């Protein structure tokens, strides 16, 4: 349909571009002013490299950045998709983004099979290289948060005919806590052919970009068809995009924005290395009540079933002027009414209370009145969220169960592997499906907590993939060079549009130990325990008893061998003892001696008694 015509127009124009074997670069900016006051700006920089980087080494890098090329070659990467996002895309207010991404960092890649390295090894090396290139902590991606999805992340680039992509060659991981700042933008900009010196990338002002409601930085590398539809050779495409959603302030109830007011930088010209440099402004929302003015007038206006777009050729428009400043103004005052939600959106949250167990519930809305939508729902949870598959329930509003068409569950292993749940089910028209599952919270070892453990632990977004019917009422930037567009036109032209939406990430509180002064606490408690308990136990349970003194061999010997007086005394003592036993009386002196002797003996006995006790 119209989409095919638009694509064919663009692709035909590129038959000429493909004549030479050189790399070429396209920069585009897509702006969508929404009637509810938000302005979505999407910068897309695409570099197409004709050289076959998969096999050869020692390539001459022209416009394609060497840093990315070397990473792809050395880690046998077929496709790479990285996004760093701050903020959540509000589907119900803003529609669908051009390139969807979850909050935090997300990385997924398809690898080529090589005998030299296993895919896990390549993944680990890739993750480290990317963390160094983009100054992000991607090196925290390891086996405990990597999954191998089967249904959700299929190759978005071309695949050799006759080959089925091996499902084990894909890896997906997300870090929901990763933040994006200028330190990620700096190396990203250095990959562009014109850096930040010329062209649309001069508008990328960090202070304005990071003060927005939503911003994302993405890098996609994939092989695409060189000539369409006879796809006999491939071109490697690097797409770098930045998506920002601003909300410009109102000026006496009216809203207006211009490139200067949004980005605080003038656009002086296009990048000289770019084949095409365009700014597209989406004016599909024009109606009698929503009238606007666009200044300066656009180079051309294209309209089709799905929308109307005003395009500016930056190179042309900046030839005579010092800078190009596109000003847009709504003539009527902004009325914040209820926004029309799109066909498919979702809302996910944690259910339950306490620190022992809980649940995750996701509500998926299908606002299409006539069509049912097939949906793949993918959930990745870390190992300390122990899911119970038997508690999974998928219910409609009436309470009827929905049986999933496909179910794949990879249970997690403590400190080894996360939980992966992939489902495919159908959403009836105009319905809300509630998916819920229960889990147990694990108690981590005390060294496994992050330094700011009281914030909690982030659980990554769930991924919902769907094929939306073409009659679905939504607009998206179809004018941009989107690699996935030819795929829909190859199967059944213009019938369905594939989208991927991400839900909210969740913040989970795990049971925490008391981190304050563990050493002191242990010492104090142990000391108190030892002194108090030990003493009390001894006092209460010790019994003092007399014990007969056993005759040792030495005493026997002393008794028998006749020596001096001591001996006699001892003999007398012994005899006295014997006499005592017989019950006879004594003299006073001898009794004294007896007394001391007895006292000495009793002391010894007592001492012995205590020793025994």
């Amino acid at each position, binding site marked *: 349909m119209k989409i095919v015509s638009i694509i064919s127009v663009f692709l035909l124009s590129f038959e000429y571009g493909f004549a030479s074997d050189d790399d070429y670069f396209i920069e585009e900016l897509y702006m969508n002013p929404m009637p509810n006051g938000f302005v979505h700006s999407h910068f897309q920089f695409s570099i197409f490299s004709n*050289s076959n980087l998969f096999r050869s080494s020692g390539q001459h890098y022209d416009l394609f950045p060497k840093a990315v090329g070397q990473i792809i070659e050395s880690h046998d990467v077929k496709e790479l998709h990285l996004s760093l996002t701050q903020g959540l895309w509000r589907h119900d207010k803003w529609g669908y983004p051009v390139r969807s991404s979850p909050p935090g960092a997300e990385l997924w890649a398809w690898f080529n099979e090589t005998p030299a390295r296993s895919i896990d090894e390549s993944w680990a*090396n890739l993750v480290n290289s990317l963390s160094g290139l983009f100054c992000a*902590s991607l090196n925290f991606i390891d086996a405990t948060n990597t999954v191998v999805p089967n249904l959700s992340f299929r190759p978005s680039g*071309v*695949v050799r005919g006759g080959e089925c*992509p091996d499902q084990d060659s894909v890896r997906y991981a997300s870090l929901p806590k990763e933040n994006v700042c200028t330190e990620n933008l700096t190396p990203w900009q250095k990959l562009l052919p014109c850096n930040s010196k010329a062209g649309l990338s001069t508008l990328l002002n960090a*202070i304005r970009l*990071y003060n927005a409601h939503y911003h994302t930085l993405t890098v996609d590398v994939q092989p695409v068809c060189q000539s369409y539809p006879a*796809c006999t050779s491939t071109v490697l495409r690097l797409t770098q995009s930045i998506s920002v959603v601003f909300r410009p302030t109102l000026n006496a109830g009216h809203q207006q924005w211009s490139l200067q007011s949004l980005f605080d930088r003038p656009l002086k010209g296009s990048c000289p290395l770019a084949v095409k440099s365009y700014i597209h402004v989406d004016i599909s929302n024009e109606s009698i009540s929503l009238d606007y003015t666009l200044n300066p007038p656009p180079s051309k206006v294209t309209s089709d079933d799905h929308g109307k777009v005003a395009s500016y050729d930056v190179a042309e428009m900046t030839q005579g002027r010092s800078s190009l400043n596109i000003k847009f103004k709504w003539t009527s005052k902004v009325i914040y009414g209820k926004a029309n939600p799109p066909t498919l959106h979702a809302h996910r949250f944690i259910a339950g209370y306490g620190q022992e167990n809980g649940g995750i519930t996701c509500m998926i809305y299908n606002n299409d009145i006539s069509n049912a939508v097939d949906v793949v729902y993918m959930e990745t949870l870390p190992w300390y969220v122990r899911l119970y598959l038997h508690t999974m329930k998928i219910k409609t509003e009436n309470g009827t169960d929905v049986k999933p068409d496909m179910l794949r569950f990879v249970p997690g292993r403590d400190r080894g592997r996360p939980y992966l749940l992939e489902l495919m089910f159908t959403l009836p028209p105009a319905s809300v499906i509630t998916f819920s599952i229960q889990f147990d919270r694990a108690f981590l070892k005390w060294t496994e907590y992050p330094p700011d453990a009281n914030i909690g632990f982030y659980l990554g977004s769930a991924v919902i993939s769907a094929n939306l019917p073409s009659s679905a009422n939504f607009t998206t930037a179809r004018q941009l060079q989107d690699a*996935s567009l030819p795929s829909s036109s190859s199967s059944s032209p213009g019938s369905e549009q594939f989208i991927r939406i991400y839900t909210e990430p969740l913040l989970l509180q795990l049971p925490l130990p008391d981190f304050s002064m563990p050493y002191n606490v242990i010492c104090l408690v142990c000391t108190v325990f030892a002194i108090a308990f030990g003493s009390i136990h001894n006092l209460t349970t010790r019994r003092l008893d007399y014990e007969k003194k056993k005759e040792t061999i030495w005493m026997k010997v002393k008794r028998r061998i006749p020596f001096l007086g001591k001996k006699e005394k001892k003999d007398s003592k012994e005899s006295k003892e014997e006499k005592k036993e017989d019950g006879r009386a004594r003299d006073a002196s001898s009794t004294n001696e007896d007394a001391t002797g007895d006292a000495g003996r009793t002391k010894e006995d007592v001492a012995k008694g205590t020793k025994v006790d």
Partner: protein
Amino acid sequence: MAGKNEYSYPISKMAAPCAIWKRILSLIVIVVLISHLSLCSSHEETAETFFKRGHTNNWAVLVCTSRFWFNYRHVANVLSMYHSVKRLGIPDSQIILMLADDMACNPRNPRPASVFNNAYQHINVYGDDVEVDYRGYEVTVESFIRVLTGRLPPSTPRSKRLMTDDRSNVLVYMTGHGGDGFLKFQDSEEISSIELADAFGQMWQKRRYHEVLYIVDTCQAVSMFQQFYSPNILGVGSSQVGEDSLSHHVDSAIGVYIIDRYTYYALEFLEKITTTSQKTMDDFFKVCPYNQCHSHTGYRTDLFQRDISKVLVTDFFGSVRNVEVSTSRLPLSEVNHTRSKVETKVSGGTYYYVDQFPSKPAENSEDKKQRVQFSNQFIIANTILLAIAAVVLVSRR
């Protein structure tokens, strides 16, 4: 003493017949010395210039060890040093910047993507061109020591490695919360001064530095470098043992203290330094006296071989490269722009785009069996258990 007696014996023996030879030898030595002295003045200059520039490259390791919004000033400290060091010429590829928390894009920052170190001048030390190598949870004692000693896993990227050699001057700047003999990392672990001294000892043994300037801006800072034993290290601390380092001022718009006193005055000094400046480390050590810092700064030069009054500040903070200007022309050959034809022909076949949405499985309820797979160990263990149980039962009969 006994040794001396032993050695004096053979000399006295030789004295009698070799007296003449001794005299001739001494004469020759005197002549040589006199000639050397006359040449000394001209050689001295060349010798001095030779020893002045013992290093050929400069590196910097800038570490902020504190987390949380109220430690904004530590991040501002490190970023200010980063700003100065970059301005004076050290490239990003030779700076390892470690920030334990993100202040610029922190949700509590009223000025996103900027970090200020001065409430009045409003210089954004975060800037447009910043590359943070270790951030967030990556800043740990282990990673810091691994960076210094070079014992990193093989997959570590170049930007995270300290690839110094024996002709590198390294500036190490650490800031955060510290105590007597330790420095706190991220509120959860500490690095002790002995560990740090051993790390530098390892660096020396591996010849990973030519000279090191170690600056520490924490409470009781001097205790951090008191245990150092490796040569060629200069240490500067912002406070003595038993003293606290204090912060400078609050920015009421941001709501927290934004810079520490020692770093504030050190920056004032560094802002006046240019790449050709002749200021010496002696001047740098005089920065921030007690009336400004409210703490006594301390420094350590006993391990350092050169005289600090002759060591330039740019030896550590700048990356001064010797440039040889030549007026002669160099002939350049024509560059061949045609790329070598690499094998781009794929052996036949076409390419296609895969369906992004998986196809539904065929509606075959009979085939829907739940395939449960038992692991091999489970099967083996079970068979052994059943065998034992069977044997026991049979034997009991």
